[in-house]
């Protein structure tokens, strides 16, 4: 029966359903990509461009082959265009989360060494993580999957688009600049968890020293490779031993791989910027940046961006001076400032994090929206592809049923590459399909259970009484099902457990 249902589902998806019927599946592997209509026209919305064009009232958005073709009033569209009436609705760029661990298999930290620059998130992307679908339901279209902060150099990041149902390879946003996670402060110095075999370093001084030493080693490594004679001259010389760890750090100091560094305090951020300046490269962003407001001008002068929790504080000693006015102050200082989630649950409501930038420090709403769209896109090097609504950019956008920063608003649709990956109506269809399947499976299970006494009729007599009351028996079974099996996979809970254990 189950196999039949599956076969039926496959048959339905193989025939690439029309957009109106497209229904996602809760399992990514069973969710065919939504079709990409040749032309889409979104009519009559309030369009937040996240560009200098500002907020356009009663505007149309024309999508052609997955890209934005035009934005403006009363745009003409061909007859075959899919028309979406968005009167009274607001349209924004898709949300970009520059700090996420929401879709990583097998733990976010390779904490075995103070530097694991050689490990790559792109090898362990969890394309099946339910977080991807849920974040689409919150308007998120691109996320940056980062290692944790257990070591000074955590590993190489992967930027993905939220193409629910695509393979790990197909999720990767190839246009993104290569990047690497660094970490400073309490986590790399292991302040907040029991450690029976402590390793160096245990202070901020030590973290700085370790990073400086690795930069120097990487410079030497690259020089050794470059100085190795080529062609005939090198024929009889032993080449330098390949070292993936140093090779990755060498990319960093030569500006080929961007540093996104976890940091809380002003002192540690200054120290990393000064080291980078000695090696003549720029720290692309600091992550969390809780005390960034204390050194806004220095961050701006160096050219470092800031990717921020807006109001998390007091969870660690180094978070005691965190203030929610931080993004407002850094933005005023000229720092490229974005807001991130660092948490798969929070990622579902980043619009409200942006709203807090209005509350704390009076950032205007359009700029606040840029802090979760255009600015993080720029930080990841994809600002010319997504994060804004402008001609030529990828059609990554969100339709809201009200002001996008209002607590009372809800995401109606989320589009990635001109495909509607989230739609409230399609989500309702999915719920109904799931409920029907659930009921069917329970019926099968209880049919099986009621068969059992017959198999051993002789010694099943004492149980017959309870089996004679199917209703309460069935209810008990449903309840214990609900208690023990929540259905989550380990990688979907990994991050929460990491947070609980390590206080971020």
């Amino acid at each position, binding site marked *: 029966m189950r196999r039949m249902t599956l076969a039926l589902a496959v048959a339905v998806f193989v025939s690439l359903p029309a957009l109106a019927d497209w229904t996602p599946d*809760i399992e990514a592997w069973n969710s065919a990509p939504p079709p990409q209509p040749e032309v889409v026209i979104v009519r009559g919305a309030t369009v937040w461009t996240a560009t200098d064009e500002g907020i356009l009232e009663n505007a149309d958005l024309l999508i052609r082959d997955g890209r934005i073709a035009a934005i403006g009033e009363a745009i003409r569209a061909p007859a075959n265009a899919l028309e979406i009436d968005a009167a009274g609705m607001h349209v924004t760029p898709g949300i970009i989360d520059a700090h996420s661990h929401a879709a990583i298999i097998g733990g976010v930290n390779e904490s075995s060494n103070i530097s694991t620059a050689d490990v790559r998130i792109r090898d362990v992307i969890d394309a099946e993580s*339910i977080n991807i*679908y*849920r974040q689409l*339901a919150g308007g998120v279209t691109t996320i940056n999957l980062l290692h944790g902060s257990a070591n000074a150099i955590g590993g190489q990041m992967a930027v993905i688009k939220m193409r629910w149902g695509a393979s790990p390879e197909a999720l990767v946003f190839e246009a993104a600049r290569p990047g690497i996670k660094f970490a400073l402060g*309490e986590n790399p110095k292991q302040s*907040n968890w029991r450690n029976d075999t402590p390793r160096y370093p245990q202070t901020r001084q030590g973290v700085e020293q370790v990073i400086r030493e690795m930069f120097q080693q990487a410079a030497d490594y690259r020089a050794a490779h470059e100085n190795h004679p080529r062609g005939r001259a090198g024929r009889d010389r032993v080449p330098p031993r390949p070292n993936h760890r140093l090779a990755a750090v060498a990319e960093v100091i030569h500006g080929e791989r961007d540093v996104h560094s976890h940091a809380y305090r002003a002192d540690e951020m200054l120290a990393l910027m000064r080291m980078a300046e000695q090696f003549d490269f720029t720290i692309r962003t600091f992550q969390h940046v809780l005390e960034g*407001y204390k*050194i*806004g*001008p*220095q961050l701006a*002068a160096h050219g470092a961006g800031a990717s921020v929790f807006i*109001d*998390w*504080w*007091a*969870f*660690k*000693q180094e*978070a*005691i001076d965190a*203030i*929610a*006015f931080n993004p*407002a*102050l850094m933005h*005023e*200082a000229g720092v490229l400032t974005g807001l991130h989630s660092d948490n*798969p*649950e*929070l990622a579902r*409501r980043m619009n*409200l994090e942006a*709203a807090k930038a*209005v*509350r704390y*420090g*009076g950032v205007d709403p359009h700029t606040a929206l840029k802090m979760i769209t255009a600015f993080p896109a720029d930080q990841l090097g994809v600002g010319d592809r997504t994060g804004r609504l402008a001609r030529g950019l990828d059609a990554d956008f969100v339709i809201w049923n009200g002001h996008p*920063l*209002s*607590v*009372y*608003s*809800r995401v109606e649709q989320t589009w990635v590459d001109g495909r509607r990956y989230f739609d409230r109506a399609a989500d309702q269809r999915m*719920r109904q399909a*799931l409920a029907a399947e*659930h009921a069917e499976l329970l019926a099968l299970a209880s049919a099986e259970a009621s068969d059992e006494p017959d198999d051993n009729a002789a010694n099943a007599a004492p149980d017959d009484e309870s089996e004679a009351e199917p209703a309460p028996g069935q209810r*008990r079974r449903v*309840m*214990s099902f*609900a*208690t023990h*099996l*929540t*259905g*989550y*996979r380990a990688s*979907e809970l990994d991050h929460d457990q990491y947070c609980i254990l390590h*206080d971020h």
Partner: protein
Amino acid sequence: MTNIASSMITRTRSLLIVLVLLLAAPAAAEITALVGATVHPVSSAPIQNGIVLIEDGRIQAIGADIAVPDGALVIDLAGLHLYPGFVHPATQLGLTEISSVPGSVDTTEMGSINAALRAEVAVNHDSALLPVAIAGGVLNAHVMPGGGLIRGTSAVLRLNGWSWEEMIVQSPAAMHLAFPAGAADDKDNDDLALIDETLDKARHWHAAEAAAGLGQAPRPARNDQLQALGPLLAGEVPLMIHVNGISAIEAALDWAQAQQFERIILSANADVQYAAERLAAEDIPVILRGVYNMPTRRWEAYDMAYVAAARLHQAGVRFAIGDSGGGMDVANARNLPFHAGTAAAHGLAKDAALKSVTLWPAQILGVGDRLGSIEPGKQASLFAATGDPLEPMSQIVRVWIDGDEYDLGMERHRRLYERYRLHQQAGSP
């Protein structure tokens, strides 16, 4: 920023008015008149250009056409909106400072039976977390103990004061019990057996004590834990049951019914929506914890926790909205109204959302006659905001607690903000 700056100017101006009035008519300044704002009493419809009179820390009168007594301190709030302070229904504010520094954390006692603990005695009235909550409009909170199965008693506190003692609004507010998750489908659960045994012993102990009082029996051996359960068993204090997951919630309700408690309050995650009909029928109030939680099960709808409040309301359950109560939520108790706002985005009526963080928690916690709305006779704990306070975009610009204006400039975050803003504007790195 301009809003805050202008509010500071306004505040300075009002301070001048206070000084002038104090010099001119010291006796008459005992009445404060908040005028010009849109008043949102919560218990009734908003009043445009309303007047709120405050005397002796309490609200004396509210309306559009009431007379402002001569000599009253008049505070003009034109363009602003007045709301009663939020009442946080379930938090550990005051019991923890920096969650990763054990020396600053007093949330969770060891052991299973902690009935004799009183949460309020460990509340640090100078905690830096309290002014931050107040700046977010959370002016009163239900502060709970958090360790073991029977956890002790909680108190409703005003969030500013010179000691925990004078911050008490209601103590004890409730006895707390963590219903063991394992008891959901195991009637022989060891933890539940220990709870049953303790309650049984307590009943006998109090019977023996009563008999001793009448001279009919020897006095039982002193036992703080059993003694502390007396008010609960006598029905003088409600039992707040903390339980998550529908099967455990159902089991907890069955258990509480068998124990014949007079008043129980359920503190539960979004799964509580699945028990809505029963809770309504039995009139058991609920503290809904975790609007901002992931769905309990992977296959549940993405908005499962967002819609829980609407489901409870629709079924007629009395409820308040709390946060999940975890470490980060204590420091961010200020975000309480946004949980309610999100519930309103997903089906809960806006006025119900507002009540779920003001009047309803006050009523459920037994302080509905003092807190939760702007009504004559209630404590004058209220704030002025630039707009709807369930909207994160709105700013809270002035606060009064028991009639006294609270200096928002005292809050650590605003002090750091002002300090570094001025430094940044001065242009020297």
